[in-house]
Protein backbone atom coordinates (compact mmCIF):
# COMPACT_ATOMS: atom_id res chain seq x y z
CA UNK A 1 0.00 0.00 0.00
CA UNK A 2 1.14 3.44 -0.84
CA UNK A 3 0.42 4.68 2.62
CA UNK A 4 3.62 3.14 3.89
CA UNK A 5 5.19 5.98 2.03
CA UNK A 6 2.80 8.65 3.21
CA UNK A 7 4.61 9.28 6.49
CA UNK A 8 1.79 11.67 7.20
CA UNK A 9 0.93 10.40 10.63
CA UNK A 10 2.51 11.93 13.64
CA UNK A 11 1.23 9.64 16.30
CA UNK A 12 -0.03 6.13 16.38
CA UNK A 13 -1.69 4.28 19.21
CA UNK A 14 0.27 1.77 21.26
CA UNK A 15 3.51 2.51 19.55
CA UNK A 16 6.82 3.00 21.31
CA UNK A 17 8.76 4.18 18.32
CA UNK A 18 9.04 7.63 16.86
CA UNK A 19 6.74 8.08 13.90
CA UNK A 20 8.15 9.48 10.67
CA UNK A 21 8.85 13.10 11.42
CA UNK A 22 10.37 14.47 8.26
CA UNK A 23 7.19 15.93 6.77
CA UNK A 24 6.85 18.60 9.38
CA UNK A 25 5.30 21.31 7.22
CA UNK A 26 1.86 19.88 6.68
CA UNK A 27 -1.03 22.32 7.14
CA UNK A 28 -3.01 21.61 10.27
CA UNK A 29 -6.68 21.60 9.41
CA UNK A 30 -9.53 22.56 11.67
CA UNK A 31 -13.30 22.62 11.72
CA UNK A 32 -14.81 25.69 13.33
CA UNK A 33 -18.37 25.34 14.62
CA UNK A 34 -19.93 28.74 15.06
CA UNK A 35 -22.73 28.01 17.49
CA UNK A 36 -24.17 31.49 16.96
CA UNK A 37 -24.86 30.67 13.29
CA UNK A 38 -26.23 27.20 13.86
CA UNK A 39 -29.93 26.64 13.24
CA UNK A 40 -29.84 23.01 14.36
CA UNK A 41 -31.14 21.73 11.05
CA UNK A 42 -29.10 18.52 11.25
CA UNK A 43 -27.86 18.81 7.67
CA UNK A 44 -24.46 17.90 9.09
CA UNK A 45 -25.90 14.76 10.61
CA UNK A 46 -27.63 13.79 7.39
CA UNK A 47 -24.56 14.52 5.28
CA UNK A 48 -22.40 12.54 7.68
CA UNK A 49 -24.68 9.52 7.49
CA UNK A 50 -24.94 9.79 3.72
CA UNK A 51 -21.24 10.22 3.00
CA UNK A 52 -20.07 7.64 5.49
CA UNK A 53 -22.81 5.15 4.57
CA UNK A 54 -24.14 5.02 8.12
CA UNK A 55 -27.75 4.25 8.97
CA UNK A 56 -28.77 3.43 12.51
CA UNK A 57 -32.17 2.36 13.67
CA UNK A 58 -35.22 4.59 13.41
CA UNK A 59 -35.65 5.54 17.05
CA UNK A 60 -38.44 7.14 18.98
CA UNK A 61 -39.27 10.64 20.12
CA UNK A 62 -37.71 11.26 23.51
CA UNK A 63 -38.72 14.76 24.47
CA UNK A 64 -36.18 16.68 22.45
CA UNK A 65 -35.12 17.46 18.90
CA UNK A 66 -31.89 15.60 19.72
CA UNK A 67 -32.23 12.57 17.49
CA UNK A 68 -30.90 9.92 17.77
CA UNK A 69 -30.73 10.32 21.52
CA UNK A 70 -26.96 9.87 21.64
CA UNK A 71 -23.87 9.40 19.54
CA UNK A 72 -23.43 5.85 18.39
CA UNK A 73 -21.61 3.57 16.02
CA UNK A 74 -23.89 4.95 13.28
CA UNK A 75 -24.10 8.48 14.62
CA UNK A 76 -20.74 10.18 14.41
CA UNK A 77 -22.11 13.65 14.86
CA UNK A 78 -25.18 14.78 16.73
CA UNK A 79 -26.98 18.07 17.26
CA UNK A 80 -27.64 18.49 20.95
CA UNK A 81 -30.44 20.90 21.86
CA UNK A 82 -30.73 22.73 25.16
CA UNK A 83 -33.49 25.15 26.11
CA UNK A 84 -31.65 27.62 28.27
CA UNK A 85 -33.11 30.59 30.10
CA UNK A 86 -30.46 33.24 30.52
CA UNK A 87 -29.96 35.63 33.40
CA UNK A 88 -32.48 38.11 31.99
CA UNK A 89 -35.10 35.37 31.70
CA UNK A 90 -34.95 35.27 27.91
CA UNK A 91 -34.91 31.95 26.22
CA UNK A 92 -31.89 30.84 24.29
CA UNK A 93 -32.09 27.64 22.34
CA UNK A 94 -28.55 26.35 22.50
CA UNK A 95 -27.71 23.94 19.77
CA UNK A 96 -24.34 22.24 19.67
CA UNK A 97 -22.99 19.87 17.09
CA UNK A 98 -21.34 17.14 19.09
CA UNK A 99 -18.67 14.85 17.74
CA UNK A 100 -14.96 14.13 17.84
CA UNK A 101 -12.88 17.17 18.67
CA UNK A 102 -9.70 15.80 17.09
CA UNK A 103 -7.56 16.84 20.04
CA UNK A 104 -3.92 17.66 19.62
CA UNK A 105 -3.33 15.39 22.64
CA UNK A 106 -5.92 12.73 22.01
CA UNK A 107 -6.94 10.85 25.13
CA UNK A 108 -8.29 8.01 23.03
CA UNK A 109 -4.95 7.51 21.38
CA UNK A 110 -3.13 7.65 24.67
CA UNK A 111 -5.41 5.04 26.16
CA UNK A 112 -5.58 2.72 23.17
CA UNK A 113 -3.69 -0.58 23.66
CA UNK A 114 -3.96 -1.76 20.05
CA UNK A 115 -1.08 -0.72 17.85
CA UNK A 116 -2.30 1.33 14.92
CA UNK A 117 -5.94 1.33 15.91
CA UNK A 118 -5.82 5.08 16.40
CA UNK A 119 -3.73 7.36 14.27
CA UNK A 120 -3.10 11.06 14.37
CA UNK A 121 -2.18 12.58 11.05
CA UNK A 122 0.10 15.51 10.60
CA UNK A 123 -2.93 17.56 9.54
CA UNK A 124 -4.42 17.01 12.98
CA UNK A 125 -7.07 14.43 12.18
CA UNK A 126 -7.40 11.65 14.72
CA UNK A 127 -8.67 8.60 12.96
CA UNK A 128 -9.73 5.12 14.04
CA UNK A 129 -8.49 2.16 12.02
CA UNK A 130 -11.13 -0.47 12.54
CA UNK A 131 -9.00 -3.36 11.37
CA UNK A 132 -6.69 -2.85 14.32
CA UNK A 133 -9.34 -2.02 16.87
CA UNK A 134 -9.76 -4.71 19.50
CA UNK A 135 -12.97 -3.30 20.98
CA UNK A 136 -11.65 -2.88 24.51
CA UNK A 137 -13.27 0.51 25.04
CA UNK A 138 -10.14 2.12 26.43
CA UNK A 139 -10.60 5.01 23.95
CA UNK A 140 -13.98 5.66 25.56
CA UNK A 141 -12.20 6.05 28.89
CA UNK A 142 -9.40 8.06 27.40
CA UNK A 143 -11.66 10.60 25.70
CA UNK A 144 -12.39 13.73 27.77
CA UNK A 145 -15.41 14.50 25.54
CA UNK A 146 -17.22 11.16 25.70
CA UNK A 147 -17.19 10.61 21.96
CA UNK A 148 -16.17 7.10 20.85
CA UNK A 149 -18.84 4.44 20.82
CA UNK A 150 -18.27 0.69 20.62
CA UNK A 151 -20.56 -1.18 18.28
CA UNK A 152 -22.33 -4.13 19.81
CA UNK A 153 -22.41 -5.73 16.38
CA UNK A 154 -18.70 -5.84 15.63
CA UNK A 155 -16.95 -4.63 18.81
CA UNK A 156 -15.18 -1.84 16.98
CA UNK A 157 -14.96 1.72 18.15
CA UNK A 158 -16.41 4.43 15.93
CA UNK A 159 -16.34 8.19 15.76
CA UNK A 160 -16.02 11.08 13.33
CA UNK A 161 -13.07 10.74 10.96
CA UNK A 162 -13.25 14.40 9.98
CA UNK A 163 -13.91 12.76 6.62
CA UNK A 164 -10.25 11.88 6.33
CA UNK A 165 -11.05 10.36 2.94
CA UNK A 166 -12.36 13.68 1.63
CA UNK A 167 -9.65 15.73 3.27
CA UNK A 168 -7.01 13.44 1.81
CA UNK A 169 -8.09 14.47 -1.69
CA UNK A 170 -8.29 18.15 -0.82
CA UNK A 171 -11.99 18.42 -0.03
CA UNK A 172 -13.80 19.60 3.05
CA UNK A 173 -15.64 17.16 5.35
CA UNK A 174 -19.20 16.29 4.34
CA UNK A 175 -20.80 18.10 7.29
CA UNK A 176 -18.86 21.26 6.53
CA UNK A 177 -19.93 21.25 2.93
CA UNK A 178 -23.57 20.66 3.76
CA UNK A 179 -23.99 23.23 6.55
CA UNK A 180 -26.58 25.65 5.13
CA UNK A 181 -25.71 28.62 7.28
CA UNK A 182 -21.94 28.32 7.31
CA UNK A 183 -22.00 27.43 10.98
CA UNK A 184 -19.38 24.81 10.23
CA UNK A 185 -16.29 26.11 8.51
CA UNK A 186 -13.17 24.27 7.49
CA UNK A 187 -9.67 25.44 6.74
CA UNK A 188 -6.25 25.68 8.26
CA UNK A 189 -6.23 25.93 12.01
CA UNK A 190 -4.57 29.32 11.76
CA UNK A 191 -7.29 30.66 9.48
CA UNK A 192 -10.02 29.21 11.62
CA UNK A 193 -8.60 30.82 14.73
CA UNK A 194 -8.38 34.21 13.12
CA UNK A 195 -11.88 33.94 11.64
CA UNK A 196 -13.14 32.90 15.05
CA UNK A 197 -11.63 36.08 16.41
CA UNK A 198 -13.76 38.16 14.06
CA UNK A 199 -16.85 36.23 14.99
CA UNK A 200 -16.19 36.71 18.68
CA UNK A 201 -15.88 40.46 18.13
CA UNK A 202 -19.17 40.52 16.22
CA UNK A 203 -20.89 38.59 19.00
CA UNK A 204 -19.54 40.92 21.64
CA UNK A 205 -21.03 43.74 19.62
CA UNK A 206 -24.39 41.96 19.75
CA UNK A 207 -24.40 41.78 23.52
CA UNK A 208 -22.62 38.49 24.11
CA UNK A 209 -19.84 39.91 26.22
CA UNK A 210 -18.51 36.50 27.17
CA UNK A 211 -18.28 35.22 23.62
CA UNK A 212 -15.14 33.31 22.88
CA UNK A 213 -13.35 30.57 21.05
CA UNK A 214 -13.33 27.08 22.49
CA UNK A 215 -9.96 25.52 21.74
CA UNK A 216 -9.22 23.90 25.09
CA UNK A 217 -5.54 23.92 26.05
CA UNK A 218 -6.02 20.98 28.39
CA UNK A 219 -5.92 18.65 25.40
CA UNK A 220 -3.34 20.70 23.55
CA UNK A 221 -6.06 22.46 21.57
CA UNK A 222 -8.50 20.77 19.23
CA UNK A 223 -9.01 20.53 15.51
CA UNK A 224 -12.70 21.00 15.99
CA UNK A 225 -13.33 24.31 17.70
CA UNK A 226 -16.42 26.18 18.74
CA UNK A 227 -17.34 29.83 18.71
CA UNK A 228 -19.49 30.10 21.80
CA UNK A 229 -21.63 33.11 22.66
CA UNK A 230 -21.21 32.11 26.30
CA UNK A 231 -17.62 30.89 26.35
CA UNK A 232 -17.44 31.41 30.11
CA UNK A 233 -19.86 28.58 30.72
CA UNK A 234 -19.33 25.91 28.08
CA UNK A 235 -21.26 23.40 30.14
CA UNK A 236 -24.59 25.03 29.27
CA UNK A 237 -24.06 23.73 25.74
CA UNK A 238 -25.22 20.21 26.55
CA UNK A 239 -22.38 19.56 28.95
CA UNK A 240 -19.41 20.70 26.92
CA UNK A 241 -16.52 20.31 29.43
CA UNK A 242 -15.22 23.56 30.83
CA UNK A 243 -11.60 22.60 31.00
CA UNK A 244 -11.23 19.22 29.38
CA UNK A 245 -8.09 17.23 29.92
CA UNK A 246 -7.20 13.60 29.81
CA UNK A 247 -8.37 12.12 33.11
CA UNK A 248 -5.75 11.86 35.82
CA UNK A 249 -6.62 8.18 36.13
CA UNK A 250 -5.75 7.66 32.49
CA UNK A 251 -2.60 9.70 32.82
CA UNK A 252 -1.40 7.74 35.84
CA UNK A 253 -2.41 4.49 34.21
CA UNK A 254 -0.76 5.15 30.88
CA UNK A 255 1.90 7.63 31.92
CA UNK A 256 3.19 6.25 35.22
CA UNK A 257 1.90 2.80 35.85
CA UNK A 258 2.57 1.42 32.40
CA UNK A 259 6.37 1.88 32.47
CA UNK A 260 6.69 1.43 36.21
CA UNK A 261 4.78 -1.80 36.29
CA UNK A 262 6.72 -3.24 33.45
CA UNK A 263 9.94 -2.20 35.14
CA UNK A 264 8.71 -3.68 38.41
CA UNK A 265 8.01 -7.00 36.79
CA UNK A 266 11.37 -7.02 35.14
CA UNK A 267 13.12 -6.11 38.38
CA UNK A 268 11.30 -8.83 40.27
CA UNK A 269 12.20 -11.42 37.70
CA UNK A 270 15.81 -10.28 37.53
CA UNK A 271 16.05 -10.22 41.32
CA UNK A 272 14.90 -13.80 41.42
CA UNK A 273 17.43 -14.77 38.82
CA UNK A 274 20.25 -13.05 40.65
CA UNK A 275 19.21 -14.67 43.90
CA UNK A 276 19.50 -18.01 42.23
CA UNK A 277 22.88 -17.11 40.79
CA UNK A 278 24.16 -15.96 44.13
CA UNK A 279 22.64 -18.34 46.63
CA UNK A 280 21.50 -21.20 44.52
CA UNK A 281 18.64 -23.46 45.36
CA UNK A 282 17.48 -24.42 48.78
CA UNK A 283 17.84 -28.16 48.84
CA UNK A 284 17.01 -30.75 51.46
CA UNK A 285 20.21 -31.91 53.10
CA UNK A 286 21.11 -35.30 54.40
CA UNK A 287 20.89 -34.29 58.01
CA UNK A 288 17.34 -33.07 57.35
CA UNK A 289 16.40 -36.52 56.18
CA UNK A 290 18.17 -38.04 59.11
CA UNK A 291 16.62 -35.75 61.68
CA UNK A 292 13.24 -36.43 60.18
CA UNK A 293 13.78 -40.16 60.27
CA UNK A 294 14.95 -39.94 63.88
CA UNK A 295 11.93 -37.97 64.84
CA UNK A 296 9.63 -40.44 63.20
CA UNK A 297 11.35 -43.29 64.95
CA UNK A 298 11.03 -41.63 68.32
CA UNK A 299 7.39 -41.18 67.84
CA UNK A 300 6.50 -44.48 66.26
CA UNK A 301 3.39 -45.82 67.73
CA UNK A 302 2.70 -42.81 69.86
CA UNK A 303 -0.12 -41.63 67.86
CA UNK A 304 -1.72 -44.98 67.39
Amino acid at each position, binding site marked *: *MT*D*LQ*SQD*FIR*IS*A*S*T*TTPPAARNHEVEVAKLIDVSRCIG*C*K*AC*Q*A*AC*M*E*WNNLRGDVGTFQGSYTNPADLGPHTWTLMRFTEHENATGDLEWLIRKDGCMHCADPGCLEACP*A*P*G*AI*VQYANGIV*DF*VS*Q*NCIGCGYCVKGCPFNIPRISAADSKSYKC*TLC*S*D*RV*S*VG*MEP*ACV*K*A*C*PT*GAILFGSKTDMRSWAGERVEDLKGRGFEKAGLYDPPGVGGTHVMYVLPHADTPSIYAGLPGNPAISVFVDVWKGVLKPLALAGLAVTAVAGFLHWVITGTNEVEENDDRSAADFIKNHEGVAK
Partner: protein
Amino acid sequence: MEISRRGFIKITGAGLAASSLGALGFGGAGEAVAALVRPYKLTAAAETRNTCTYCSVACGILIYGLGDRAKNARPGVLHIEGDPDHPVNRGTLCPKGSGLLDVVHSPGRLTQPRYRAPGSAEFKPVSWDFALNRIATLMKEDRDKNFIAKNKDGATVNRWLTTGMLAASASSNETALVTWKVARSLGMVVFDNQARV
Protein backbone atom coordinates in the same frame (compact mmCIF):
# COMPACT_ATOMS: atom_id res chain seq x y z
CA MET B 1 2.45 -16.49 -9.13
CA GLU B 2 5.73 -15.23 -10.33
CA ILE B 3 7.77 -12.99 -8.17
CA SER B 4 10.74 -11.11 -9.50
CA ARG B 5 13.95 -11.27 -7.59
CA ARG B 6 13.66 -7.64 -6.56
CA GLY B 7 10.10 -8.21 -5.49
CA PHE B 8 11.19 -11.20 -3.48
CA ILE B 9 13.82 -9.18 -1.71
CA LYS B 10 11.30 -6.48 -0.97
CA ILE B 11 8.77 -8.92 0.41
CA THR B 12 11.26 -10.84 2.50
CA GLY B 13 12.95 -7.66 3.63
CA ALA B 14 9.71 -6.13 4.72
CA GLY B 15 8.63 -9.38 6.26
CA LEU B 16 11.86 -9.73 8.14
CA ALA B 17 11.72 -6.19 9.35
CA ALA B 18 8.13 -6.58 10.37
CA SER B 19 8.70 -9.85 12.17
CA SER B 20 11.79 -8.73 14.01
CA LEU B 21 10.15 -5.50 15.03
CA GLY B 22 7.12 -7.52 15.94
CA ALA B 23 9.18 -9.71 18.17
CA LEU B 24 10.27 -6.63 20.01
CA GLY B 25 6.73 -5.43 20.37
CA PHE B 26 6.75 -2.87 17.62
CA GLY B 27 4.40 -4.88 15.51
CA GLY B 28 1.25 -3.59 13.93
CA ALA B 29 2.53 -0.22 12.89
CA GLY B 30 3.13 -1.20 9.30
CA GLU B 31 -0.25 -2.87 8.99
CA ALA B 32 -1.97 0.07 10.55
CA VAL B 33 -0.57 2.61 8.20
CA ALA B 34 -1.31 0.38 5.27
CA ALA B 35 -4.99 0.48 6.09
CA LEU B 36 -5.35 4.12 6.96
CA VAL B 37 -7.56 6.43 4.94
CA ARG B 38 -10.73 5.14 3.35
CA PRO B 39 -10.35 5.53 -0.42
CA TYR B 40 -12.23 8.53 -1.81
CA LYS B 41 -15.28 6.92 -3.33
CA LEU B 42 -16.15 9.32 -6.12
CA THR B 43 -12.91 9.41 -8.04
CA ALA B 44 -14.39 8.23 -11.30
CA ALA B 45 -18.14 8.30 -10.65
CA ALA B 46 -20.28 9.98 -13.32
CA GLU B 47 -21.41 13.43 -12.18
CA THR B 48 -24.80 14.85 -13.19
CA ARG B 49 -26.08 18.35 -12.43
CA ASN B 50 -29.55 18.47 -11.01
CA THR B 51 -31.80 20.48 -8.71
CA CYS B 52 -33.01 19.43 -5.29
CA THR B 53 -36.58 18.17 -5.43
CA TYR B 54 -37.81 19.68 -2.21
CA CYS B 55 -38.19 23.38 -1.51
CA SER B 56 -37.99 26.41 -3.72
CA VAL B 57 -34.50 27.46 -2.79
CA ALA B 58 -33.78 25.01 -5.63
CA CYS B 59 -30.31 24.10 -4.52
CA GLY B 60 -27.97 22.85 -7.18
CA ILE B 61 -26.96 19.27 -6.58
CA LEU B 62 -24.42 16.89 -8.03
CA ILE B 63 -25.63 13.34 -8.49
CA TYR B 64 -22.86 10.77 -8.56
CA GLY B 65 -23.73 7.65 -10.45
CA LEU B 66 -22.37 4.17 -10.47
CA GLY B 67 -20.28 3.60 -13.57
CA ASP B 68 -18.82 6.03 -16.07
CA ARG B 69 -21.80 6.04 -18.47
CA ALA B 70 -20.42 3.07 -20.36
CA LYS B 71 -23.19 1.21 -22.12
CA ASN B 72 -22.85 -1.87 -20.00
CA ALA B 73 -22.94 -0.06 -16.66
CA ARG B 74 -26.38 0.70 -15.29
CA PRO B 75 -26.05 4.15 -13.76
CA GLY B 76 -27.55 3.83 -10.31
CA VAL B 77 -27.35 6.82 -7.99
CA LEU B 78 -24.41 6.44 -5.61
CA HIS B 79 -24.20 9.73 -3.78
CA ILE B 80 -25.67 13.22 -3.89
CA GLU B 81 -24.10 16.42 -2.64
CA GLY B 82 -24.41 20.15 -3.16
CA ASP B 83 -23.17 21.91 -6.28
CA PRO B 84 -20.47 24.33 -5.11
CA ASP B 85 -20.91 26.47 -8.23
CA HIS B 86 -24.55 27.17 -7.56
CA PRO B 87 -24.91 30.82 -6.55
CA VAL B 88 -27.64 30.22 -3.98
CA ASN B 89 -26.61 27.13 -2.08
CA ARG B 90 -22.89 27.21 -2.93
CA GLY B 91 -22.54 23.52 -2.22
CA THR B 92 -24.62 23.42 0.95
CA LEU B 93 -27.66 21.25 1.45
CA CYS B 94 -30.20 21.04 4.24
CA PRO B 95 -31.00 17.77 6.07
CA LYS B 96 -33.57 16.91 3.43
CA GLY B 97 -31.22 17.61 0.54
CA SER B 98 -28.41 15.78 2.28
CA GLY B 99 -30.69 12.75 2.53
CA LEU B 100 -31.85 12.81 -1.11
CA LEU B 101 -30.08 9.53 -1.76
CA ASP B 102 -32.48 7.78 0.59
CA VAL B 103 -35.57 9.06 -1.15
CA VAL B 104 -34.24 7.99 -4.54
CA HIS B 105 -33.62 4.54 -3.11
CA SER B 106 -36.53 4.47 -0.70
CA PRO B 107 -38.21 1.12 -0.08
CA GLY B 108 -41.38 3.13 -0.71
CA ARG B 109 -40.52 3.73 -4.38
CA LEU B 110 -43.10 2.23 -6.68
CA THR B 111 -41.88 0.04 -9.50
CA GLN B 112 -45.00 -1.14 -11.25
CA PRO B 113 -48.55 0.06 -11.88
CA ARG B 114 -51.04 -1.31 -9.39
CA TYR B 115 -54.80 -1.54 -9.43
CA ARG B 116 -57.30 -1.82 -6.64
CA ALA B 117 -60.69 -3.13 -7.77
CA PRO B 118 -63.91 -1.88 -6.14
CA GLY B 119 -64.37 -3.43 -2.72
CA SER B 120 -60.99 -5.10 -2.80
CA ALA B 121 -58.64 -5.03 0.18
CA GLU B 122 -55.47 -5.16 -1.87
CA PHE B 123 -53.54 -3.74 -4.78
CA LYS B 124 -52.74 -5.99 -7.72
CA PRO B 125 -49.91 -5.35 -10.15
CA VAL B 126 -51.19 -4.56 -13.64
CA SER B 127 -49.69 -3.61 -16.97
CA TRP B 128 -49.38 -0.03 -18.09
CA ASP B 129 -51.73 -0.77 -20.97
CA PHE B 130 -54.40 -2.08 -18.67
CA ALA B 131 -54.08 0.91 -16.37
CA LEU B 132 -54.05 3.63 -19.01
CA ASN B 133 -56.78 2.03 -21.13
CA ARG B 134 -59.03 1.62 -18.13
CA ILE B 135 -58.40 5.18 -16.90
CA ALA B 136 -59.05 6.63 -20.36
CA THR B 137 -62.29 4.67 -20.61
CA LEU B 138 -63.45 5.83 -17.18
CA MET B 139 -62.55 9.41 -17.98
CA LYS B 140 -64.40 9.35 -21.27
CA GLU B 141 -67.48 7.74 -19.75
CA ASP B 142 -67.59 10.34 -17.02
CA ARG B 143 -66.88 13.24 -19.34
CA ASP B 144 -69.45 12.23 -21.93
CA LYS B 145 -72.06 11.87 -19.21
CA ASN B 146 -71.34 15.05 -17.28
CA PHE B 147 -69.74 17.55 -19.64
CA ILE B 148 -71.40 20.98 -19.44
CA ALA B 149 -71.38 22.61 -22.86
CA LYS B 150 -73.74 25.42 -21.96
CA ASN B 151 -74.83 26.85 -18.65
CA LYS B 152 -78.42 27.31 -17.64
CA ASP B 153 -78.47 30.70 -19.34
CA GLY B 154 -77.48 29.09 -22.59
CA ALA B 155 -73.96 30.53 -22.67
CA THR B 156 -71.14 28.35 -23.95
CA VAL B 157 -69.04 27.25 -21.01
CA ASN B 158 -67.55 23.88 -22.07
CA ARG B 159 -66.47 22.67 -18.67
CA TRP B 160 -66.09 19.29 -17.01
CA LEU B 161 -66.60 19.29 -13.26
CA THR B 162 -66.97 15.66 -12.29
CA THR B 163 -63.35 14.66 -12.70
CA GLY B 164 -60.64 16.76 -11.12
CA MET B 165 -56.91 16.78 -11.05
CA LEU B 166 -54.09 17.82 -8.78
CA ALA B 167 -50.80 18.60 -10.47
CA ALA B 168 -47.43 18.04 -8.88
CA SER B 169 -45.29 20.78 -7.48
CA ALA B 170 -42.17 18.69 -7.90
CA SER B 171 -42.67 18.08 -11.58
CA SER B 172 -40.96 20.14 -14.23
CA ASN B 173 -42.43 23.03 -16.20
CA GLU B 174 -42.45 20.73 -19.17
CA THR B 175 -44.58 18.20 -17.35
CA ALA B 176 -46.73 21.10 -16.23
CA LEU B 177 -47.43 22.34 -19.74
CA VAL B 178 -48.26 18.89 -21.05
CA THR B 179 -50.56 18.38 -18.08
CA TRP B 180 -52.23 21.75 -18.62
CA LYS B 181 -52.80 21.00 -22.27
CA VAL B 182 -54.36 17.61 -21.64
CA ALA B 183 -56.49 18.70 -18.68
CA ARG B 184 -57.83 21.86 -20.25
CA SER B 185 -58.47 20.38 -23.66
CA LEU B 186 -60.84 18.09 -21.79
CA GLY B 187 -62.48 21.14 -20.19
CA MET B 188 -61.28 20.28 -16.70
CA VAL B 189 -61.56 23.10 -14.14
CA VAL B 190 -61.40 21.25 -10.83
CA PHE B 191 -57.69 21.59 -11.12
CA ASP B 192 -55.11 22.65 -8.58
CA ASN B 193 -51.60 22.23 -7.26
CA GLN B 194 -49.77 22.59 -3.96
CA ALA B 195 -49.53 26.39 -4.17
CA ARG B 196 -51.93 26.78 -1.27
CA VAL B 197 -51.11 23.84 0.94
